[in-house]
């Protein structure tokens, strides 16, 4: 069976959930071979094997941390040369897309980004995408070279499928040309203890109706009761009420959780573009005419400062 390269997104060996989703999708089109770059492969390998990796190609070099993107492209290309895969899958993060793009140029292949599903087709893998603010669903395939596909988080439920997952060292030579962009310093983002926005199964977002940074704890409390990530509309971010890293929308992050709760968000196209593929959508807004209500599975016309805290209490009491 053909091998499929899966680029592993991890933090020091802690494999992030989108990679497990990639492994699940990869098994539909071949045998997943995971590519783990950087430290922590001993921690990552059993998790990757548990989710179907027949092999884990590992490389660690200081260049991966010292320079932006390009050294990782060198490494992925080395894995590509070693395996001759039927496809290469990467997570649709900013970095995943950039690595995939550069690899595609090098190997003369097409690239599809932001797939929400991948399946086997007669002429190679077929990727489903959701475009134009989710008003269209397209199916595409790559016609030249080895398909390089980046996949959005929450595109598949990770399934266990134990495989050998033996670790093999991958020899990587980082080209001088790949040391062009130096990472001078790195400041880790302070952990909020909440799930990462793009990966979360539930997202609770606040918008203009939250009416001030001092009121965002109302949104955070509901999020915490549900184990959810916190999002914010562009209006709330532009007003300085919440960090840009939490912005959901066309110019922020695109999310596709199982449940999306929008509180005090009117639902401008900018915002809808970033959340419209959410499976279940709930809105709480004072304005019964707000466009967000056109999208919802359940909407409450009411003051978020009444409804959200009361909902938080309900959730807590039901969860006991």
């Amino acid at each position, binding site marked *: 069976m053909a091998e499929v390269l899966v680029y592993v997104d991890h933090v020091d060996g802690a494999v992030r959930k989108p990679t497990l989703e990639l492994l699940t999708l990869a098994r539909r089109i071949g045998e997943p071979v995971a590519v783990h770059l950087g430290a922590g492969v001993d921690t990552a390998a059993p998790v990757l094997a548990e989710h179907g990796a027949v092999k884990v190609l590992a490389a660690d070099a200081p260049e991966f941390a010292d320079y932006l993107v390009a050294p990782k492209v060198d490494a992925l290309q080395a894995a590509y040369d070693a395996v001759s895969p039927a496809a290469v899958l990467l997570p649709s993060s900013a970095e995943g897309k*950039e690595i995939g*793009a550069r690899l595609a140029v090098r190997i003369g292949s097409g690239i599809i980004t932001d797939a929400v599903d991948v399946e086997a087709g007669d002429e190679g893998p077929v990727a489903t995408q959701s475009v134009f603010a989710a*008003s*269209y*669903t397209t199916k*595409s395939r790559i016609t030249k070279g080895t398909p390089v596909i980046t996949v959005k988080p929450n595109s598949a439920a990770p399934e266990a499928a134990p495989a050998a997952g033996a670790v093999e060292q991958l020899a990587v030579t980082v080209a001088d040309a790949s040391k062009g962009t130096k990472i001078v310093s790195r400041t880790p983002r302070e952990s909020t203890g909440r799930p990462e926005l793009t990966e979360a199964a539930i997202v609770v977002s606040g918008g203009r109706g939250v009416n001030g940074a001092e009121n965002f704890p109302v949104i955070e409390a509901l999020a915490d009761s549900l184990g959810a990530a916190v999002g914010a509309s562009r209006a709330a971010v532009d007003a300085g009420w919440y960090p840009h890293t939490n912005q959901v929308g066309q110019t922020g992050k695109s999310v596709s959780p199982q449940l999306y709760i929008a509180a005090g968000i009117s639902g401008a196209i900018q915002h809808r573009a970033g959340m419209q593929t959410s499976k279940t959508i709930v809105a709480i807004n004072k304005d019964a005419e707000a466009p967000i209500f056109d999208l919802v599975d359940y*909407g*409450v016309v009411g003051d978020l400062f009444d*409804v959200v805290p009361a909902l938080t209490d309900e959730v807590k009491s039901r969860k006991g």
Partner: protein
Amino acid sequence: MSLRIVVCVKYVPDATGDRHFAEDLTVDRDDVDGLLSELDEYAVEQALQIKEANDGEAEITVLTVGPEDATDALRKALSMGADKAVHVEDDDLHGTDALGTSLVLAKAIEKTGYDVVVCGMASTDGTMGVLPALLAERLGVPQATQLSQVAVADGKVTGRRDGDTASEQLEAALPAVVSVTDQSGEARYPSFKGIMAAKKKPLETLDLDDLDIEADEVGLEGAWTKVESADERPARTKGTIVTDEGEGAKQLAEFLAGQKFI
């Protein structure tokens, strides 16, 4: 020597319009007005600020690949303050995908000459966000991408890249490809004077011959990807909407419990 800045911009269908696909599954450009991609306005703004920070010792060229109407996007950038424009237009470009576009842009950039290429973080239509990386790879120069803060001085570019898990400070020697986010700084509005001046600024049009690109390397036929189907998403079935009269939270909790979220 004065700094040569090339800003890549895209003419996109207005996202507030009713966007759809044409019969050949390319974007239908006839039914929706086009405009300069909002995220590219940030790139133009940063180019202008780089020029100002270098005491005006820079020349800003805005570059686009697109249909005839795409000159609108170039004019907007010129009216913001860019110095000249290059428009790559050719019938054979219809249906070109990201890889093809990066090939055309790279050739046009090399022809124009550059020290810094500035791009937006993504287009507002395709939203792929891969073009700056594709360009860096094709041009063989460093990429300093997704910057929320950028400066060019002393032959190098420095900037801040805010990622999911960390914020990084980057540094690359010129020439380099830069992309900027919507956090890099609000884009200026063109002044009346700027709009008038833009009409007199040079706008060069190039075709595939000018760039030594064969027709079969680009366009729908030459694309590395193929859209096989595009289906309009069925309208969402009208959800339940209740008005809160004291019971709203309870009703919502019932719904969430019914969906197994609680």
